[in-house]
């Protein structure tokens, strides 16, 4: 149930994956095959289990049942909704986090890719929200991850910055390769970026839709609009997630783990 790493098979496979929090079944018998190099977007209402699925793929959480095969923590990098930059490290030191000591040049290259090379020696608190997310993206990509997980990374940004970030994520994913899984509740963002959109409803895969539009997608193109409209209708039709609010287990779990970890 732990993400293992068979070097030959770089695809992600989930069969009958379950996850429960107490009484609540958050993920039910998820079956999914994500070929290497695919960009998948997972959409759904709040509490549908999409973040839980991402945490399973990241190895931050364990499934209660089923088989999960993913690249493993060392080859997976995660980008969060909040940038989670360490405020006591400079932008460059943040990007170099977890790299060997002699990889400053590499970190600087990654910063150049996101256009923030000249801010390398500033504190993160001096950057705007969009710039911080760009640094977080550089920090994730500098490891050349086999799997890039994006947990609503643009959710807290304004509309214009979001569009810029979408273009940046797309171009960096195209140049770096690797598999990407994006969790979002912005259907338009999903259609802009993904090869394939998966809609989760109450912990089950409700829709699994390929997006066969040529890249650098134009959100006013009729095909784009049709797809976006279909997905949005489908999300809205779906049942509301259960009355119980989505559990936020990570705080307690991590808090407890931190103290045993050292």
């Amino acid at each position, binding site marked *: 149930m732990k993400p293992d790493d068979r070097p030959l098979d770089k695809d992600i496979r989930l069969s009958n994956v379950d996850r429960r929090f107490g009484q609540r079944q958050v993920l039910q018998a998820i079956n999914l095959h994500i070929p290497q190099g695919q960009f998948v977007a997972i959409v759904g209402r709040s509490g549908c289990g999409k973040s839980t699925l991402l945490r399973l793929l990241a190895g931050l959480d364990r499934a209660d049942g089923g088989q999960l095969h993913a690249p493993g923590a060392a080859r997976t990098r995660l980008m969060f909704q909040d940038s989670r930059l*360490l405020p006591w490290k400079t932008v460059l030191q943040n990007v170099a986090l977890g790299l060997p000591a002699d990889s400053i040049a590499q970190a600087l290259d990654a910063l150049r890719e996101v256009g923030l090379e000249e801010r390398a020696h500033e504190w993160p608190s001096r950057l705007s929200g969009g710039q911080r997310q760009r640094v977080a993206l550089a920090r994730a990509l500098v490891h050349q991850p086999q799997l890039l997980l994006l947990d609503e990374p643009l959710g807290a940004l304004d509309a214009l910055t979001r569009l810029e970030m979408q273009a940046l994520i797309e171009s960096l994913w195209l140049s770096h390769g690797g598999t990407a899984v994006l969790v979002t509740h912005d259907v338009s963002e999903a259609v802009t970026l993904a090869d394939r959109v998966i809609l989760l409803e109450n912990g089950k895969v409700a829709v699994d839709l390929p997006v066969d539009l040529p890249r650098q997608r134009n959100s006013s193109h009729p095909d784009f609009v049709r797809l976006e409209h279909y997905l949005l209708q489908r999300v809205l039709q779906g049942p509301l997630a259960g009355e119980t609010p989505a559990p936020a287990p990570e705080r307690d779990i991590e808090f407890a783990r931190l*103290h045993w*970890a050292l």
Partner: protein
Amino acid sequence: MSAFRIASLKRQLLPWLAPAVIVLAWQLAAAEGWLNSRVLPSPWHVLEAGWTLAASGELARHLWVSFVRAGIGFAIGASLGLALGLISGLSRLGETLLDTTLQMLRNIPPLAILPLVILWFGIDETAKLFLVAFGTLFPVYLNTWHGIRTLDPGLVEMARSYGLRGWPLFRHVILPGALPSIMVGVRYALGIAWIILIVAETLAANSGIGYLASNAREFLQTDIVVLSILLYALLGKGVDISVRLLERRLLAWHPALQTAL
């Protein structure tokens, strides 16, 4: 001289305006005979007494003794507090074992154990060091614990997903994250160190500023008593300034410290 430099000079001098006015008023009151010199000697007399003591080398000796006592006592107490705070902040077992005991000890005013300490160690150096260490341990302990426990779990989760474990996790994430809180404990502990030392030296010592004051009281030398009090004020301010400079260096990243220099 630009307007900016005048403004910055003003900012540096303005805090000293109130103390200067108080000293001037005091000098005036003494010179006009409104103040009996047995009650409160004039600033000038205090200065003279200071000069005489300084010239004989007496002042430097007492100052040094007090300074060393505060320093060693604080170093012992703060290191213990830091170590215990780290243990109980980082491990549940450590907290279970330590916290109740420390919370009980914390509520004992350090000066309440003075009689016992004098019985144990006499008016020896050990007594003073023990008291200062005892008083400084708890603020550092509490703030270290608090700093670790209020760390953003999101940052720890991020660091772990980037492969940081054990010592690197501690060095790059937990310790710097807890540092602002630890520094609050350090500043508070330094204040406490002086208070305890003054009282301890007044009651049981044969050197140090506190001794200087209590000895002068015996001989009704009010000028020396007042001098000792002023010395404590200046020393306390001096220590506070140095800790603030240290804070500026260690916490340069902190948004709250990036304004006003």
